[in-house]
Structure formats: C-alpha cells, structure tokens
C-alpha cells in the first residue's frame, strides 16, 4: 500500500459495467514528508475520499479485492483515509 493525496475527481459515463457506482479520483503519490513522488494517476474510490485528503491505496490486481464485484479492470483503489502520521525521519 502507498500514501497519496487526492487532487481531483474524474467523471466517466461510459465505463466498464462492474465499475459503475464507484467514484474515480486523481491521486498524487506522496512520501511520509508529503513530498510528491512520480506522476498523478486515477484510482477507484471505495471509501468516499475527497480532494485534499491524504489516503492510502492498493495497486495492481489486488485493487479489485475491496470492490463488491469479482472482476473489474481496475489497477488502483483507495482503501483508507489517513487521520495522522507519526514517522521518524528516514
């Protein structure tokens, strides 16, 4: 799982049937100091996160596990909203 910040929302009417009903959010990966890592990407939102929130997400095939469907072409899913982080400097 990785840390990320929700930076925006994306709407799509035509999408694969099994993903209908889930919101999609643009996520920027961050490190424990909230510095950006890499490029933003789109993740399916399973918990109702909003722009500006720090979240954690799963990628790859495991991104399908938190969904209610057996199969969905999804390679990133938001699975939690971060309340606070304690981290010793790395």
């Amino acid at each position, binding site marked *: 799982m990785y840390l990320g*910040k*929700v*930076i*925006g*929302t*994306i*709407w*799509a*009417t*035509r*999408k*694969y049937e099994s*993903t209908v009903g889930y919101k*999609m959010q*643009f996520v*920027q990966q961050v490190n424990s100091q909230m510095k*950006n890592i890499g*490029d*933003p*990407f*789109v*993740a399916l939102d399973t918990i109702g996160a909003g*722009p*500006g929130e720090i979240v954690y997400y799963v990628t*790859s*095939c495991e*991104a*399908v596990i938190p969904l209610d469907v057996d*199969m*969905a*072409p*999804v*390679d*990133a899913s938001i699975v939690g909203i971060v309340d606070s982080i304690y981290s010793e400097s790395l």
Partner: protein
Amino acid sequence: MILGRVIGTVWSTRKDEFLVGAKFLIVRQLDLDYMPKENFVVAVDSVGAGVGEIVLVAQGSSARQTAFTRNKPVDAVIMAIVDKLDISVKETLQESLKE
C-alpha cells in the same frame, strides 16, 4: 489507471488465437492539462472507445479482469471514457511540475 487519448488503431492478422476479436487502440498518455506525454500503450478496448476520445487505461494484471480479456495475454485495457476532469488541488500539481 492512466489518462490518455486514443490516437490510432492497430490491425493485426497473425496474433495469438486468444486475441481474435479484440480491438486494439493506440493510447497516448496525457498530463492533467491534456498535454500529450512521450509514452503510449496499445490497449484492448472494453467500452467502445474511438479515435480522439480521452480514456482511462488499466495496466498490468488488472487488464485481465474483464469478461473478454480473462486469462488472455493482455496487459492494458481501456476501461472508461472520460467526460470531465476536475483538479481542485492545484498546488500539488505545481509542485509536481517543478520537481
């Protein structure tokens, strides 16, 4: 998933027998201002996208999670056609552009 624009179609006669009937589209990745990036992927279409449309592409093993691509040699699939994009946290975007 990555954001991209469909810029072309691929036709192929000799291919793996599992791929017969698949529609292959060339998708060029876009940044958040819809400016094209360098990289592109060839993706199987699962939603009926056409050339010029902005789409989302799921990559890796997740691309096999559709009814058509299940257990087939596919690593990129178009899973949504984008209507609208709203980037509300602009500072994040600017920081990422600076780096």
